[in-house]
């Protein structure tokens, strides 16, 4: 029992040693599963598990990675059947409300090694494609727009190997995009993201 504890302790010490003495990978590729929550939206307020991101970054100085980030998030919400009055008529239907976002940013991460895992602070700046759709039966009302996007993120990279060339990463992010969609009366898009994925040296 004592030997086992000593072994674990030694492993932790060595992991810490490697962390402090690590050589950062020259490049990092990241695949994340992204959960999103719309913030301040009258259109959809339900969270969504349908999201993913992909990034490729190069080490440009001791702790700084920079590169491209591409993602998507789908949000949808079912609205049970009701009657919507019009000026001279009405519509009775159930419907789906749907948002499709594709963020494309230039992303820079500041990585702080700390014991057995690394913290990272990230800022992505770029553009976001947003598509809003009302779907009823086989009919749809669609509007799409591009906007300017800011996407800060924080998280941790947990090494999955002693050589520290692959990591499990998880964290949270916030995105604000300027997309305005007149049909749907929206002015700006805000989302909170929770992400989980892998980060590795390709």
């Amino acid at each position, binding site marked *: 029992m004592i030997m086992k504890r000593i072994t674990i302790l030694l492993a932790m010490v060595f992991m810490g040693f490697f962390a402090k003495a690590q050589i950062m990978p020259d490049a990092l590729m990241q695949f994340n599963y992204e959960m999103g929550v719309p913030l301040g939206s009258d259109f959809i307020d339900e969270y969504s598990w349908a999201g993913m991101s992909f990034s490729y970054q190069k080490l440009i100085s001791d702790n700084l990675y920079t590169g491209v980030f591409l993602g998507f998030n789908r949000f949808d919400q079912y609205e049970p059947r009701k009657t919507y009055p019009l*000026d001279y008529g009405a519509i009775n239907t159930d419907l789906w409300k749907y948002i499709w976002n594709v963020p494309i940013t230039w992303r820079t991460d500041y990585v702080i090694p700390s014991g057995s895992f690394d913290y990272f602070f990230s800022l992505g700046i770029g553009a976001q494609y947003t598509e809003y759709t009302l779907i009823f*039966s*086989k*009919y749809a009302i669609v509007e799409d727009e591009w906007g300017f996007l800011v996407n800060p993120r924080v998280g941790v990279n947990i090494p999955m190997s002693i050589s520290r060339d692959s990591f499990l990463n998880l964290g949270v992010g916030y995105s604000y995009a300027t997309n305005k969609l007149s049909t749907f009366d929206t002015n700006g898009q805000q989302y909170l993201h929770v992400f989980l994925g892998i980060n590795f040296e*390709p």
Partner: protein
Amino acid sequence: MTQKHWVFIGSILFLVLAGCLKYPDYGTRDGKLFVYTGYSPEADFSEYSTFYLVDSVALISDSKNDPNRIKDKYALDAIQAYRDNLEARGYVEVSDPDSADLGGMITVLKNISIYSSGYYPGYWWGYPGYYPPGYWGYPSYGYWYPWSAVYYDQSGTVVLELVDLKNAPAEEKLTIVFNAVMGDVYNINNPTQATVDAINQAFEQTPNLKK
């Protein structure tokens, strides 16, 4: 594998997943049809007393194998639902369009391939199955929608129209005073019952359509 390979594979994987996840099945969940209704802002429905209904449903289809008119159980149940609702609103059916104040017709759109440029509201009016103005005794008149009605050009749409026959000679046109657009009848379990329910709903959401 080089970094370029990884970036290429990663990008392809990403795009494939994005494509798969973009549009899941967003069909209706309650087994009912979408129902749009509209009516003429100028119509005074209390001025009408009688109505005449067509005896078959017009079928607008590009397929030469389809009949222009249908008179099966689906059509007869839909016409009966139309009749029941008009009678419930105080109108009396007559057997001759010449003596009717209102003319009711039902059209089903199916397999239409004229989506491209040049179509206009009511573009199916010239199709063989659609009841022409001459059916009502006014071959030289045109149909007329006095409001911005909703039109759909997709297959599976059922259109209910109510024509003002009473004022047609004075106005020299066949004004549509009420319409209902319902669908998708080709993607629903039990389309006959769904259409009957949709016709009932069309009247329910148009309470001013009454004698």
